[in-house]
C-alpha cells in the first residue's frame, strides 16, 4: 500500500522542482488562445478572416448576443434591438444576468476560447482588465468614424470607455450613464402629523435631506421597527460591489479617499480621518433600515422600499423606473446628500465592449449595431425608454431630457459630480478586499481605523503585485 503512495508523492515533488526553475512557456492553458493581451485584440479581425464578406453567410438569420445585467435599461435596449432588426434583419438578443454574479459569469466566459456573447455591456470598473488582458476589442480607430467623440459626456468617456482614463484609447462605446441617487416617500414627508412631530422633536422643518447630517436625522425619525416602518435602505451587500458603491457617496463627501490624488499610493490616504468618519457614518445609517439591512443587494434595497416600509433609499437611478411606476406621485427623487458642501455620487453605467473571442464576422455585426445605436436619432429614442440614460452630453443637458421623468432632473444634476472606483486591471481584487474590510467595519467586527489600516496594506500589496505602485 505504501509503495504507490510514496511514488505518487515523489512524482509530485519532482514536478514541482522542475517547474520552478524554468520559466513556464506559452500561456497556452489558462485562457486557451489569448497569447498576449493587446496583440490578440489587434490581430483577431485580420487573422481570422480577411474581410467580413469572405466569411460564409450563416445558414440561419444573422444575430448578435448582448450580455447586460438585469435591470430596466436592458429591457429598453432589447426594444431598440427589435427596431434594429426590422431595419437590418440582424437580430439582437439581450441576455440579462443578475448583477451579483455578473462579473464572475462574464470573466469565466472570457477565460474560454470563445464567449457566448458578442457584446458585453461591462461594468465601468472592468475596463482596465478588459483592455489590458486583450478581452475587449480596441475601438480607438473605429469609434470616431461613427460618432463625434466630442458629443460624449467627458465623465462617461473617462470612466466608461477609455483605458487608461483620459488616454484617448477606447475599449468601449458609451451605452448607459448612471449614478447613485435618492428616492423618498413624498407622502410621508408631506404628512401634516409627521411634519408637526418632526418640528417638535428637532426644531426644524421636515424636508428632503440635503446634507448627510439631515439624512441621518430624518432616517432616525422614521425608524420605528415596532410599527414596521424604517428610516432608509441603502446598498450593503457583499457579493459583488453593493456595499462599496453605496459607501462611496459618503466616503468622498466626508473628505475620505481610496488612494492618493495622482498615484496609487494607499497607505496614508485611505486610513485617514475622513475615511474613518465616513465608515462610521455609513455604519450608523445602515442600521436605520429593516432588520438584516447590513446585507442588502440592489434588488433587496428596492424591495425594502417597494414593500412600503421604508422612508428613503439610495440606489442607482437606473433602478428607479419601477419605483416611479409603482408609487407615482407618492415618491420623489433627489441627488445624494452632501457633507460640508461636498457632494459626490458613485458612478454607475456601462459601455458596449466587443469580445475579442468571437469571429470577426460577429464583431462586424456588433459594430453595425453599436454605430446604429449611437446615432443622434436613436439616442433620442433611447432616452424615452425606462432609464435610458444616454451619454450624449447635449441630450443630457436638454430641458426635454429633464422633463421626461421625475428622476431625470436629479440624474442630470448628479452627472457632473460622478466618480468611480478603481478601474485598473486588478480592480476585482481591490473590490474583494474593500467589500471584506469595509464590511467588517460596518458590521462592527473591527474598529473602523483598524479595518482601514488592514485594507490599505492589502491594497498596496495587490497593487505592488500588479506592478501599479
Amino acid at each position, binding site marked *: 500500500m505504501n509503495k504507490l*503512495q510514496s511514488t505518487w508523492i515523489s512524482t509530485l515533488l519532482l514536478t514541482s522542482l522542475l517547474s520552478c526553475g524554468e520559466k513556464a512557456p506559452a500561456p497556452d492553458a*489558462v485562457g*486557451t488562445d489569448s497569447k498576449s493581451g493587446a496583440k490578440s485584440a489587434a490581430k483577431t479581425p485580420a487573422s481570422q478572416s480577411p474581410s467580413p464578406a469572405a466569411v460564409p453567410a450563416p445558414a440561419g438569420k444573422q444575430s448578435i448576443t448582448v450580455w447586460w445585467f438585469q435591470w430596466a435599461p436592458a429591457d429598453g435596449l432589447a426594444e431598440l434591438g427589435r427596431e434594429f432588426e426590422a431595419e437590418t434583419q440582424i437580430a439582437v438578443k439581450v441576455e*440579462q444576468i443578475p448583477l451579483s454574479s455578473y462579473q464572475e459569469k462574464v470573466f*469565466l466566459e472570457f477565460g474560454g476560447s470563445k464567449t457566448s456573447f458578442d457584446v458585453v455591456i461591462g461594468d465601468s470598473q472592468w475596463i482596465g482588465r478588459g483592455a489590458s488582458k486583450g478581452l475587449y476589442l480596441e475601438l480607438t480607430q473605429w469609434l470616431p468614424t461613427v460618432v463625434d467623440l466630442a458629443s460624449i459626456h467627458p465623465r462617461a468617456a473617462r470612466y466608461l470607455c477609455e483605458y487608461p482614463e483620459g488616454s484617448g484609447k477606447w475599449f468601449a462605446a458609451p451605452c448607459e450613464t448612471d449614478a447613485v441617487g435618492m428616492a423618498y416617500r413624498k407622502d410621508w414627508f408631506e404628512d401634516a402629523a409627521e411634519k408637526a412631530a418632526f418640528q417638535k422633536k428637532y426644531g426644524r422643518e421636515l424636508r428632503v435631506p440635503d446634507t448627510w447630517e439631515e439624512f441621518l436625522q430624518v432616517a432616525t425619525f422614521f425608524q420605528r421597527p415596532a410599527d414596521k416602518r424604517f428610516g432608509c435602505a441603502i446598498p450593503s451587500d457583499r457579493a459583488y460591489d453593493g456595499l462599496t458603491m453605496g459607501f462611496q457617496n459618503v466616503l468622498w463627501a466626508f473628505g475620505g479617499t481610496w488612494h492618493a490624488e495622482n498615484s496609487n499610493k494607499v497607505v496614508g490616504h485611505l486610513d485617514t480621518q475622513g475615511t474613518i468618519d465616513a465608515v462610521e457614518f455609513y455604519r450608523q445609517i445602515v442600521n436605520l433600515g429593516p432588520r438584516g439591512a447590513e446585507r442588502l443587494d440592489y*434588488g*433587496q434595497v428596492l424591495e425594502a422600499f417597494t414593500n412600503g416600509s421604508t422612508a428613503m433609499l439610495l440606489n442607482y437611478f437606473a433602478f428607479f423606473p419601477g419605483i416611479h411606476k409603482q408609487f407615482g406621485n407618492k415618491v420623489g427623487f433627489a441627488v445624494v446628500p452632501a457633507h460640508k458642501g461636498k457632494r459626490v455620487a458613485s458612478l454607475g453605467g456601462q459601455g458596449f465592449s466587443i469580445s475579442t473571442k468571437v469571429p470577426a464576422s460577429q464583431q462586424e455585426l456588433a459594430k453595425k449595431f453599436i454605430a446604429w445605436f449611437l446615432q443622434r436619432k436613436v439616442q433620442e429614442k433611447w432616452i424615452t425608454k425606462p432609464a435610458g440614460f444616454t451619454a450624449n452630453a447635449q441630450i443630457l443637458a436638454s430641458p426635454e431630457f429633464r422633463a421626461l421623468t421625475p428622476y431625470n432632473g436629479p440624474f442630470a444634476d448628479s452627472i457632473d459630480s460622478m466618480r468611480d472606483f478603481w478601474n485598473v486591471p486588478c480592480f476585482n481584487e481591490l473590490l474583494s478586499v474593500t467589500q471584506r474590510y469595509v464590511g467588517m467595519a460596518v458590521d462592527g467586527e473591527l474598529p473602523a481605523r483598524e479595518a482601514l489600516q488592514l485594507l490599505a496594506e492589502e491594497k498596496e500589496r495587490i497593487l505592488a503585485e500588479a506592478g501599479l505602485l
Partner: protein
Amino acid sequence: MKLLRWLVIAGYLFVATLPLVWMGLSSIKQRDATISANARFVPSLSAPVGEDSARFEATLDPYRQLAHVHAGARQSFWGHLKSSVTIGFLSTAAAVVLGSACAYGFSRFRLAGKQDWLFFILSTRFMPPLAVVVPVLIMYRRMDLQGTHLGLALLYTVFNLSMAVWLMKGFLDEIPRAFEEAAMVDGYSRAQAFVRVVLPEAATGMAVTAVFCLISAWNEYGFAMTLNSSGAVTVPAYFAGLQGNIEGMPWPQIAAGALVFVAPIVAFTVLVRKNLLRGMTFGTIKQ
C-alpha cells in the same frame, strides 16, 4: 424508558420536519406571503382580510410558474430539470457499470498491485472538488466539453467511481465464487456465468450503489456552477444563480422546485431502503 424514547423521536421529528413543512407551505403561496413580516402559516381558500392575518390564500401557481423563465436563466425549471435528469442518470449508469466491472475485476482476479490500486481509487474520494476545478476547466476548454451535458456527466462519473467500486466490491465479495465456477464447469463461458449467475445476485447491490451515485450527482453544485455558465445548467446551479435578481428571489417557485427535485430521490431511496444500510457501511456489516 419507553416514554423517553417516544419523546426523543417525536421531538426530533417535529423539529427536523418543520423546515420541510415550511417549504411545503411556501410552495403554495404567492411571493408576497413568503416574505411578509407577519408570518402566514394557515392556508385558506380566500385572500386574508387583515394585515395581521396568519392566513394566506393557497395557490398552485408556484408549480405552474415553474415553467417561467427568470432573468439570468435561459430556460425554465423544467429545462434545467431535464439537464439534471440527463446528467444524473447518464453518470449514474456509467458509474455503476464501470464500477461494477472494476469491482468484479478486483474481486475475482489476482491483479498485481491490487491493494495499491484500491487505495488509490479510494483516495480520490477525499479530493476537495474545488482543488481540481481549474485544471479540469482547462482540460474541458481544450476538449470543448465546457457547458455540455457530457462534460458534467463524465465528471460526476469519475467522482462517483471510487464509491461505486468500493460498494460493489463489498457486495461482489459476498457472492461465493463457487456459483460461477459451478456454472463454468457446466459449460458456460465466463461472460455467460457472469450474466446468469453473478448479475442477479449483485442486482440489489447495484441498485444501492446507483442511489448513492444519483444523490451525489443530482445535488452537486460546485462544478455545475463553475464549468457551466449557460449550457447544461443543473437545477441546484440554476436556483443559486437567481440570487441578486432584482425581482427578488422567487421563493414559492424555489420551494416548489426543491420539492419536485427531491421527489425522484425519495422514491429511489424507498425502493432500495432494505439494502441501504449495508451500502452505507461499505459492507462492513453483514445483515
